[in-house]
């Protein structure tokens, strides 16, 4: 226990916002995570010492900027165990990564009568790109449903997959239910049916080790800002063979080899997909976030988040008017708890918690089909990061226990 407190202090000290604002219990980590000084310093150093437009200049400074940018790519490659840095494309965020696949891959290879299979628990960012691509091609968009615990069975999945399924897109961890899908197994089934497998790693990459070769997914999308990196940098991993077959997504500078009046040849991977001036400082920040993760280690990160997840389940379940969506087992939540409170609208809950300095999310969490499937319009969500403490969970629960009274219900 004393150990945990010392570790809490040691970790929190490194996050300026967390450290400077003890009055805030920040429990909206699924939306975005706070940033360690290590990341902020790395970005500042880049701008103060190495800023130039990467990949363009022939002078030393530009080459250093390029090196920094490419070092970040290598850090990402290692972090998700991709085979080759050519398979790591920098984007703005997970949403852009998924759109890249939706535009470039899906719109090139989907045919009329084909099927795209997603799940009922997808974030709008892993739903709308497929809805649009399917519409454009005259393909069908199909959904696999989960049970009330959020579990998607292989039987249900097999029922929906056919020889016309070309693309399967699935989140590894749900941003609403916190449940983890067995992506490795589903990717295998998808491949047997001849489909490519797109994994939304926005909620998994920041919380569990993700190995793209072990999972054997064809694409993986995630955002830097959900793992302590800056906003505005994201990653698309794609298998080299697929990325090579795909046309560019955006056209312009940096993604070309030669341009003549009527034709152009495109740059090699990964630059083919990185048109225009890149977000080098963002990539450097993400690289620093990865170093920070490596330093702390997933063992510690997961132990802390599992501890917080257990406490959250224990303490929320003790309130009879609080109802948690999804599994009763904290191991299936990955620190993400979405709940309702009898008689109180989620926006009022979030506003009252805010009055006590507890920051949570209220609304549909960009997953309206799931909300409908779960027979609710809007809910409240608390989600942990590894810098959160048991004391903060206590503050959440204490504030929640006053909500009904403040609303005049009891």
């Amino acid at each position: 226990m004393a150990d945990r407190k010392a570790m809490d202090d040691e970790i929190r000290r490194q996050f300026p916002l967390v450290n400077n604002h003890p009055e805030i219990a920040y429990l909206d980590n699924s939306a975005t995570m706070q940033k360690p000084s290590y990341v902020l310093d790395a970005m500042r150093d880049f701008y103060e010492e190495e800023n130039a437009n990467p990949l363009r200049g022939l002078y030393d400074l530009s080459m250093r900027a390029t090196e920094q940018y490419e070092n970040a790519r290598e850090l990402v490659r290692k972090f998700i165990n991709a085979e080759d840095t050519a398979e790591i494309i920098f984007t703005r965020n997970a949403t852009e990564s998924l759109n890249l696949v939706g535009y470039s891959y899906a719109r090139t290879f989907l045919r009329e009568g084909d099927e795209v299979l997603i799940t009922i628990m997808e974030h709008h960012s892993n739903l709308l790109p497929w809805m649009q691509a399917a519409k454009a091609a005259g393909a069908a968009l199909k959904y696999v449903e989960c049970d009330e615990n959020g579990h998607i069975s292989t039987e249900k999945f097999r029922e929906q997959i056919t020889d016309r399924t070309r693309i399967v897109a699935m989140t590894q961890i749900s941003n609403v239910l916190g449940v983890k899908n067995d992506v490795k197994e589903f990717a295998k089934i998808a491949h047997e049916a001849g489909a490519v497998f797109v994994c939304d790693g926005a909620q998994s990459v920041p919380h569990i080790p993700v190995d793209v070769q072990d999972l054997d997914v064809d694409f993986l999308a995630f955002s830097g800002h959900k793992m302590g990196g800056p906003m505005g940098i994201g990653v698309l991993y794609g298998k080299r063979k697929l990325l090579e077959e795909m046309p560019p997504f955006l056209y312009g500078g940096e993604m070309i080899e030669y341009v003549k009046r009527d034709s152009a040849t495109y740059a090699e991977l990964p630059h083919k997909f990185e048109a225009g001036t890149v977000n080098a400082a963002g990539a450097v920040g993400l690289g620093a976030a990865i170093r920070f993760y490596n330093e702390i280690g997933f063992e510690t990160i997961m132990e802390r988040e599992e501890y917080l997840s257990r406490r959250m389940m224990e303490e929320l379940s003790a309130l009879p008017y609080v109802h948690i969506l999804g599994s009763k087992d904290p191991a299936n939540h990955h620190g993400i708890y979405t709940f309702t409170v009898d008689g109180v609208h989620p926006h009022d809950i979030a506003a009252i918690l805010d009055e006590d300095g507890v920051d949570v999310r209220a609304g549909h969490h960009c997953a309206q089909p799931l909300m409908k499937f779960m027979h609710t319009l809007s809910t409240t969500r608390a989600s942990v990061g590894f810098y959160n403490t048991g004391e903060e969970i206590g503050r959440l629960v204490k504030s929640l226990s006053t909500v009904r009274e403040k609303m005049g219900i009891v």
Partner: protein
Amino acid sequence: MAHNTFYNEILTDHNLHPAHKHDLPDANMELEGVNPSCGDDIILKLKVEDGTVVDGAFVGDGCAISQASADMMLDLIIGRSVDDAKHLSDIFLRMIKGHITDEEKEELEEASVLEDISHMPARVKCAVLGWHTMDEMLGEDYEKPAD
């Protein structure tokens, strides 16, 4: 964080025991108002005769602020002329932006408890939902009966 809760008794009472949340079969005007980002969704029903809001009600779902605000609005406008209703709406919307006089605030009676919403930008849409819906109903499409 020792500040008082925004959710005072007037607000919670209008939310829990709204006087005007019910169907209105003889309404002659009806419009749905939605906040897509929050899921607040009300249907405002008015019975307007000879330029007067004779009766009014609402049904739907939403947070306490959206529900209480619609209820307080109906308290104010039932029995008043359409012009008065529009005038009150104008004051209310300006109150939310923080630009009204004390006299104007008095005209809003209980609805003035929502004044502090101007410091809660995320909730402004909830507070104005009923008023905006009414404005739209009584706006350009509303044909003033000839005197």
